[in-house]
């Protein structure tokens, strides 16, 4: 039976690469983004929505359940970053970042868990960042939104454990995507220098951890946060 994988933020970057990878190995992928999809595949469905719009997310999850009867994996990949001193960070920026990063993760986790609970199986992977563990200056709000996701991940992993649902989080290091193209180069180099292994992360590094989290054999792995590159809290 084909695995049904829901990935948020599939228009570009890591989300798109992951969607294409899981399609290439025979999974059904349901994706979303605020703008039209960029993947054409018989087993891909795209929903245009804002991940913090509760009702739109409910509709997407119910449409998926209706068509495929199950959702095996949820990758809460959609996220936005912002680099700024907190004294010059606007209230609106904070709202936007928390809406997309935390609220999006919350709503999708809640709605998809309802389906996973019924099927007594599920794998949820949330996204944090090494900026959270490192308390990086200039990333206070972004890291705080991810810190919220870390705590949420660990707490709900207990609440859904009785239903054979695991919830884990991956904390990627910078990889060369749109998310960091606005960050000054010296800041990125400083960050790489804080890692045990001093290089950019790659898509392969991320895929490797996600594959581990969602593997059927990983049923005893939950509430874990894995940072790439040798960073720890």
């Amino acid at each position, binding site marked *: 039976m084909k695995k049904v994988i829901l990935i948020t933020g599939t228009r570009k970057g890591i989300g798109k690469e992951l969607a294409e990878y899981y399609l290439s190995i025979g999974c059904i992928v349901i994706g979303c983004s605020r703008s039209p999809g960029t993947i054409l595949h018989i087993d891909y469905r795209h929903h245009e929505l804002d991940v913090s719009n509760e*009702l739109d997310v409910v509709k997407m999850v*119910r449409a998926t359940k209706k068509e495929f009867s199950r959702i095996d994996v949820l990758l809460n990949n959609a996220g936005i970053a912002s680099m700024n001193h907190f004294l010059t960070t606007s209230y609106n920026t904070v709202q936007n970042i928390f809406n997309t990063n935390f609220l999006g993760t919350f709503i999708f986790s809640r709605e998809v868990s309802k389906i996973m*609970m019924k099927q007594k199986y599920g794998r949820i992977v949330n996204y944090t960042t090494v900026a959270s563990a490192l308390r990086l200056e200039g990333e206070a709000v972004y890291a705080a939104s991810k810190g919220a996701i870390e705590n949420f991940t660990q707490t709900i992993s207990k609440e859904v454990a009785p239903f054979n649902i695991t919830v884990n989080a991956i904390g990627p290091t910078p990889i060369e995507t749109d998310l960091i193209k606005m960050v000054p180069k010296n800041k990125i180099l400083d960050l790489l220098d804080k890692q045990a292994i001093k290089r950019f992360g790659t898509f392969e590094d991320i895929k490797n951890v996600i594959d581990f989290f969602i593997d059927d054999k990983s049923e005893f792995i939950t509430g874990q946060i894995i940072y790439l590159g040798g960073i720890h809290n």
Partner: protein
Amino acid sequence: MTNKIEEVILNSLIELNEELENNPLGSPSKETQLYGGGGALDSMALVSFITDLEEIISEKFDKDIILADERAMSQKTSPFRSVESLTRYIKKLLEELN
């Protein structure tokens, strides 16, 4: 509308009752206490029930509602404490969508 909602709730309860050990809800009726003081459902069974109900309401009424409320786990004021209070609560949510 009230009768239709009540019927949906009671049918869901009958199904749920069969899934649970010892049929704790007996023969569900309008007066059946669900959650909190004297209610037959624990928080896990309640969560499962709410999930079923959201899906059935979406099918029967063609409207997507979310049964989430800050009082959900309250022993005294939870809208999920009885069939009657739940019917009122769902009716209110459906009316808000009109």
